[in-house]
């Protein structure tokens, strides 16, 4: 077993054993923080697919988190008010059933990513960064204008979604749902980046013109990756809405996109598992530093700079001794 595998196993064991440890020590807050880390990790890993593998520097990833969260919020709102969401082509009165709501949240975010990605991916470089930011801000202001769904104040959920055999109101059940979602997505993403599809994305990220010169229509591959990343960010948003039992346009603000980007850089760009570590370190530092000062970013900034300078492959590369990029 090499250093990378040891790091991964240690990480997995810590994550699996966190709920019993939290119960033993009587600290339910730990479970709540753990769930939050897992949800942000899911969103950060999805962003790593774009940033670290496809070199698609999206500053609008929070839009998909927000769309996923609002799907949960809006369906809950209509379900509680017994007011139909749709009357045509069929009557749909909203739902709190996780089996329906969570996949629907991911699909809605994926659909949003399809539309946004189809337009944004016609640009490159700085234009791509700015247009993804513009779309996210557009959605942010759009949801602020939706007074029916709380506008700027957002929507509160009376309860978390229901899932058969699970009580998501219980911290440990919800934690393991988030953990399962993260593990499944990591498994899928690992298979994806090591498949021929992933090789093309990595190649296009490095030299898009060369990939095209070798007979590959890279736009389709990039758009598919954008949709996958958007859908999984939407799932993260749906879980976040469930965790906080609240959704607001703030989830789509560019600052969340920036935070996700910091998590990816901190953990290790193009490492897939790195963003999980990045999310954990970012949120733990935030929690710890915020106890002493509200200006915790003053300390986070230099930490990020030092990590980027001295740990070229992020904290994950530093811990696992992994010098490979995109491997």
């Amino acid at each position, binding site marked *: 077993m090499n250093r990378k595998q040891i790091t991964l196993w240690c990480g997995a064991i810590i994550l699996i054993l966190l709920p019993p440890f939290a119960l033993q020590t009587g600290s339910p807050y730990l479970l709540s923080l753990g769930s939050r880390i897992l949800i942000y990790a899911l969103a950060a890993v999805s962003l790593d697919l774009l940033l670290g593998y496809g070199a698609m520097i999206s500053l609008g990833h929070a839009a998909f988190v927000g769309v996923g969260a609002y799907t949960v919020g809006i369906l809950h709102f209509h379900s509680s008010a017994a007011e139909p969401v749709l009357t045509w082509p069929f009557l749909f009165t909203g739902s709190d059933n996780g089996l329906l709501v969570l996949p629907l949240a991911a699909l809605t975010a994926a659909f949003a990513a399809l539309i946004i990605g189809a337009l944004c991916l016609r640009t490159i470089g700085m234009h791509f960064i700015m247009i993804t930011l513009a779309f996210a801000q557009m959605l942010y202001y759009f949801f602020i204008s939706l007074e029916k769904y709380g506008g700027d104040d957002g929507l509160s959920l009376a309860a978390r979604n229901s899932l058969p055999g699970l009580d998501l109101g219980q911290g440990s059940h919800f934690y393991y749902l988030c953990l399962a979602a993260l593990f499944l997505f990591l498994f899928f993403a690992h298979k994806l980046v090591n498949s021929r599809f992933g090789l093309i994305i990595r*190649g296009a990220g490095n*030299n898009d013109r060369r990939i095209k010169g*070798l007979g*590959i229509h890279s736009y389709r591959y990039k758009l598919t990756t954008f949709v996958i990343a958007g859908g999984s960010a939407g799932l993260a948003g749906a879980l976040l809405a469930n965790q906080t039992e609240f959704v607001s346009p703030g989830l789509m603000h560019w600052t969340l996109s920036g935070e996700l980007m910091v998590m990816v850089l901190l953990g290790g760009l193009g490492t897939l598992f790195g963003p999980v570590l990045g999310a954990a370190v970012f949120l733990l530092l935030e929690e710890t530093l915020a106890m002493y000062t509200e200006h915790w970013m003053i300390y986070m900034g230099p930490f990020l700079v030092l990590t980027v300078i001295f740990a070229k492959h992020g904290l994950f590369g530093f811990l696992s001794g992994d010098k490979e990029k995109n491997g």
Partner: protein
Amino acid sequence: MLVVEKIETCYGVSQALFDVSLQIGEAEVVTLLGRNGMGKSTTVRSILGLTPVCAGKISYLGHPIEALQSYRIARMGIGLVPEGRQIFPNLTVRENLIATAANTRKTPQPFGLEAVLNIFPRLSDRLSHYGNELSGGEQQMLAIGRALMINPDLLILDEATEGLAPLVRKEIWRALTLLKERGLSILIIDKNIEALMVIAERHYIMEKGHIVWSGTSSELHARPELKSRYLGVDC
């Protein structure tokens, strides 16, 4: 097979190619010669749709290709080994080879990983190395192998042996001879005139964006002044 008719290519307001015409037949090896900055690479880029032409026609196997996107041209069977190799440094040798491998035109005896490694045995030992861990010669072998993996009928090499050690050059010429024997059409840009006169049947010389001379190897051999005038070779 490839017919380029009076193409003109511009970079913004400055014109780089003027009435460039050339032809490559089936299983023929042709070279494009000239000093640096004369338009050889621009010609190749124009053929492959990487730099759009502003006038003229390019047809491949009878189909016009001057308005097609580069990926469509590559799928029709034109493989490029670009200047500077441009291998993917973040992929291993094996990944570089298989990432874009295709046989879209259902070639009866397609190039696969094994066939490429037979041509360049040196790559066999380097399969798990990343592209940026290879020597210049190995990178060039990989770039040729990668182009072969899309199973082209026409292979274009821009600066085939530039900056390579004599022994590596030999290996590249040996490989190109093998490919020629296999029936591949090849367009080569390079400065090693002697080696090119052995491997190629016909040559085009470019000067300031124009084709100023074309002829066979024996015709070029008989006119040493061409080499000194256009290629900077002392005879």
